[in-house]
């Protein structure tokens, strides 16, 4: 029976296709019109016609200049109908090269035909299966589309919708921008048609995203004598459709983040921010809540004042807690459809909430406290860290990272909830994106005052961190070495030895020549922490003295920033504090000359560090101090110290006086 019906359908479909080949053009036209009526709302019929090869024939008829305009228009309409079927339909159409054919059709002068082509193009381009690049392959297409914007409300609606969907990269933004997208689309924001207004608005949101050039231009655009930002503000009024409010808020957010609008501008503080907070409320659809939270997180990320305002607006912090309640227990029992819907959005909701919490808590200690005091917050983060969805894991660790900037939270809630455990787990085999965040969080957890430091050490974290320092990603290398640096701060000899062993001197010196200054700084920091307290200094220097001295020489001779050199001189000062390690400097005249040079440097910080080093070398109570003092006097250090006692910087002056006293005693 099934087969029978299927065959019947195929037979009738076959009939439709056959008629497209009729020699009489009038019959062909009638055939296309009948086909149009047959496919409306009938996905199976659409699929059949595609399988039977209707598309190439329709395209042929559409492109033939001998076809009547009416026939060509009807063909475009039928193709538009076919495109409204399944994704497979779209794929077939694209494979038949429908896009260039329709774009070619736009060159015709007949408006109705153009509208039919655009309509079909719109349907094809907004499908996720269509490669957006196809819009940009022919460089004449975009300017032609721009020129069609003035033709009718329909061309406006379809073209802006195509732009809004096909602008995915900075290159796309630039192409559209260079062809006058802003001047051409701005007037459409006050079109009488809602659809046109909405699509034009969407265009601006995708054009302005992370694009300073577009954003800067947008602020100066006037629409009917009114500034564009004010037009957007009006679109955020609370009686406007939610989609419009949300998209307008996005436009302003992107303009603000691109630096075109100040963060303390009223249109941001009093309009955009409250609008986005409203989008997070329970009354909104789940999709809207996700977008609202993500956009809000993006808006206030760099601005503490916006974070503070958002944190007290409409109970945002507790409102977000609701994002974790999907699927709700009610939906599971009562309504399968609802459950399905909830499940689909649950991950998105959670990651959006984590992102927003991360943004909220990135600067202000009080807000962090408020977040961690939200119901089950730490538990939610902990379970978020081990969720299957990467997006959620990433957002959860971002949130954790943001909260880990709080000394108080590190001491309390982080320890109580043993967040280090899932964090350590997350660090195994995670993608780079997650690793960066997780390792950065780990850095904070390894701070000296963090009670989590001990258990983390015991879990064998050193190997892991050492492997991070070998990563190709500079961010991971920084985090790895940074964590090691934190770990080595005031650590036991055992830990230090373990770090040096695990890292290996070779890797250590490779890091000292790392192209990334941050990596270099943290490596120097690690060295400095390793070289603290006298016994540790002597032990490390006795085994690695030669290499370290080489590295120090190299850096002091190289082209480095003041900070790097200062850090290096501090290492030298630490070495000078060792019992046996001192000799490595004293016997190195070249090094002593360098110290001398830096004592006379124009930068006070470097002078201070170098003086500190000398002061350690001539310290009285130690063995052999007399010889060292003599040698250094002979080298002219006393004169320099004497000069420095007159220095205008009080610290430097004090340091030099203390050093001079060693000679007097």
């Amino acid at each position: 029976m099934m087969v029978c019906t299927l065959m019947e359908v195929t037979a009738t479909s076959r009939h439709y296709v056959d008629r497209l080949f009729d020699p009489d053009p009038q019959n062909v036209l009638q055939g296309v019109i009948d086909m149009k009526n047959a496919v409306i709302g009938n996905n199976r019929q659409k699929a059949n016609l595609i399988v039977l090869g209707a598309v190439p024939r329709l395209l042929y008829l559409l492109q033939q200049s001998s076809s009547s305009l009416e026939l060509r228009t009807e063909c475009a309409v039928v193709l538009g109908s076919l495109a409204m079927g399944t994704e497979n339909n779209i794929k077939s159409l694209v494979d038949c090269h429908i896009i260039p054919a329709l774009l070619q059709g736009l060159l015709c002068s007949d408006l109705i035909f153009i509208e039919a082509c655009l309509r079909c193009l719109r349907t094809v381009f907004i499908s996720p299966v269509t490669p957006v690049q196809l819009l940009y392959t022919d460089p004449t297409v975009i300017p032609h589309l721009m020129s069609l914007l003035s033709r009718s409300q329909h061309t406006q609606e379809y073209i802006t919708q195509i732009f809004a969907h096909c602008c995915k990269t900075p290159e796309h933004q630039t192409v559209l921008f260079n062809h006058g997208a802003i001047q051409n689309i701005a007037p459409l924001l006050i079109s009488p048609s809602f659809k046109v207004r909405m699509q034009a608005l969407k265009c601006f949101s995708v054009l302005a995203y992370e694009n300073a050039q577009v954003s800067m231009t947008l602020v100066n655009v006037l629409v009917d004598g009114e500034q564009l930002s004010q037009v957007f503000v009006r679109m955020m009024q609370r009686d406007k459709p939610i989609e419009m409010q949300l998209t307008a808020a996005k436009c302003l957010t992107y303009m603000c983040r691109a630096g075109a609008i100040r963060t303390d501008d009223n249109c941001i503080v009093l309009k955009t921010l409250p609008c986005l907070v409203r989008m997070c409320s329970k009354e909104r659809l789940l999709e809207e809540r996700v977008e609202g939270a993500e956009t809000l997180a993006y808006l206030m990320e760099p601005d503490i004042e916006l974070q503070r305002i958002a944190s007290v607006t409409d109970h945002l912090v507790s409102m977000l807690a609701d994002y974790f309640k999907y699927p709700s227990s009610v939906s599971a029992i009562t309504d399968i459809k609802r459950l399905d819907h909830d499940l689909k959005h649950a991950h998105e909701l959670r990651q959006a909430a984590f992102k927003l919490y991360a943004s909220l808590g990135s600067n202000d200690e009080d807000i962090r406290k408020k977040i961690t005091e939200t119901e089950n917050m730490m538990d939610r983060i902990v379970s978020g860290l081990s969720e299957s969805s990467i997006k959620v894991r990433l957002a959860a660790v971002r949130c954790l990272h943001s909260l880990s900037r709080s000394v108080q939270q590190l001491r309390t809630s982080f320890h109580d909830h043993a967040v280090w455990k899932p964090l350590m787990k997350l660090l195994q085999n995670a993608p780079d994106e997650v690793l960066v965040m997780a390792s950065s969080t780990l850095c904070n957890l390894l701070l000296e005052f963090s009670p989590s430091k001990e258990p983390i050490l015991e879990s064998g974290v050193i190997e892991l961190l050492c492997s991070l320092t070998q990563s190709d990603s500079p961010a991971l290398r920084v985090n790895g070495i940074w964590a090691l640096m934190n770990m080595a701060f005031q650590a036991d000899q055992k830990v230090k030895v373990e770090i040096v062993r695990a890292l290996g001197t070779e890797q250590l010196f490779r890091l000292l020549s790392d192209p990334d200054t941050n990596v270099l700084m943290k490596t120097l920091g690690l060295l400095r922490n390793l070289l603290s307290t006298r016994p540790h200094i002597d032990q490390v220097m006795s085994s690695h003295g030669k290499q370290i001295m080489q590295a120090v020489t190299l850096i002091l001779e190289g082209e480095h920033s003041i900070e790097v050199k200062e850090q290096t001189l501090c290492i030298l000062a630490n070495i000078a504090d060792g019992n046996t390690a001192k000799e490595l400097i004293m016997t190195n005249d070249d090094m002593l000359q360098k110290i001398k040079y830096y004592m006379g440097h124009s930068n006070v910080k470097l002078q201070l560090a170098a003086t500190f080093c000398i002061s350690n070398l001539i310290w009285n109570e130690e063995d052999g101090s007399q010889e060292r003092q003599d040698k250094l006097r002979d080298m002219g250090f006393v004169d320099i110290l004497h000069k420095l006692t007159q220095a205008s910087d009080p610290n430097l002056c004090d340091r030099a006086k203390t050093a001079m006293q060693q000679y007097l005693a």
Partner: protein
Amino acid sequence: VHIFSQSHLCLVMYQVLKEAVCGLIAVSWLASRPIRIKQARNLSSSSPVVSDSARFSHWTLIESCPAKDSWQAVGIGGRNRIAMSGPSSGCGFLMSVVVHGDLALNEQEKELNQRLKRLYPAVNEQETPLPRSWSPKDKFSYIGLSQNNLRVHYKGHGKTPKDAASVRATHPIPAACGVYYFEVKIISKGRDGYMGIGLSAQGVNMNRLPGWDKHSYGYHGDDGHSFCSSGTGQPYGPTFTTGDVIGCCVNLINNTCFYTKNGHSLGIAFTDLPPNLYPTVGLQTPGEVVDANFGQHPFVFDIEDYMREWRTKIQAQIDRFPIGEREGEWQAMIQKMVASYLVHHSYCATAEAFAKSTDQAVHEELASIKNRQKIQKLVLSGRMGEAIETTQQLYPSLLERNQDLLFMLKVRQFIEMVNGTDSEVRCLGGRSPKSQDCYPGSPRLFNSPVHKASSSQTYQTGTAEVEMELDHFSNGVSESSSNGFLNGSSTHGIDLEECDGDMGEIIIWRQLCGGSQAAIERMIQFGRELQSMSEHLRRERGKNSANKKMLKDAFSLLAYSDPWSSPVGYQLDSIQREPVCSTLNSAILETHNLPKQPPLALSVGQAAQCLSLMARTGSGSCAFASVDDYLH
């Protein structure tokens, strides 16, 4: 689920109205077709039909009230509202408040009144005045007031919570506000900053901070907690101090309250609030000073935006109000209402066409409708003498039995004489009779729905759009116009512009009785007759203040050299013919045992009544459901 279930009745009424009006517009378009055909058939004698359809369309598009005086009878202004736009309900009362004081104060009061009127248009201030300042009577003795009772300062010892003191506003918040808002600026936090801002019912102890007692609600500056009729607060918002502006918004639709700080909403603080709360502030330590803004200045928070949201919500609720299974009946009822309306106002050709197309019977003989139509036309064109005569001919006993009505008609006749439009003076004067047929309201009559519909039709033909498959937007966006694109929403504005051009020719000359000496003499003589009729009436039936005033106003016209621009000149406006016309029409209908008012006007009136009832019973949604909104 239904926030305002008690107001369902109102919503039903609205639905009736809305549908009726939509129906009317659609129907007028439908009905215009047969009329046009008719017109084409007998071009020579079709004038009544033309003016008939024209008047009908005039109503539907201008959206003024059809049954002019009958609307007034149930309490809403309708067309009269437009005519006398100045002194409507609350305003007169407000003005009386502003008698004394310096100029600046006057300005501030004016701004306040304007803002309050804009924010709370549904509030009838004669019934429920809005808070404008703190009450010097309703406060604890430790509270001092200054600056027109807007500034509050603490003057007690402030040693313990027992020294707390509060003050209430002069009036409770009327429910008809829908959404009410006021702001308080902290001028000084004083010693400890124990300020509380909130609401309380009448009679709540004033030796306390708002929120501590039953029916009292507050948000306190020192700890940022909210106090909901309890001595212990709940963590609510941030703390506030000198320089901060704290706003308090009461939503009278869902009975909640939220606060704002420096223009930022802090979220819901209280739910299930009781009705009739007063704005209240409380202070507790020396040096604390706060200023209130009940609308004297622009608010820091954008309360109008919040109101817009609720207006949209309420209107969406009305739009979506379910008709249920009785949809068929519904349709029939609406058609009946429309038909009865048309008959009532004797738009007989349209009524006939409508009845035909909707399969209805007309309950009045066509001849009778036509008679009434004739009389109405006379009244509306200012030909009162003829109107009275015709009435006496067609309904011999009507005016005899109803002397007050006759008197009213005669007074109107007098006014029309002054105007130079009445038949008796017109034949003495020298005006072309043709132009007189067209009464000044009529230029708009060219702005007919026929025109509108046909233009939107041409817009459609030739487009392949209609035949195409509908768009499949997942988000379900629709055109802002509820009619969708079929009725191109932009046409409305164009139509209005078109009709403006015709306005110029209305008032061509303004001379007493049309400038004829004979006519003036006739008018004076008629005035004497009227005077004696009035005396006669008083002797027979006792004093009638309405009649007396009517006559006095009419005679006052003669006291001015240019009656048209005099304070009583409004009487000469053709709009004033409409209540007369309507009263006469109702009287005629009554003699036929037909209703005085058409059901449509009744339901409009009833909806308006429901709204004022809702206001009185505390249903805040009445604020966002003005009947007028649905007549547009």
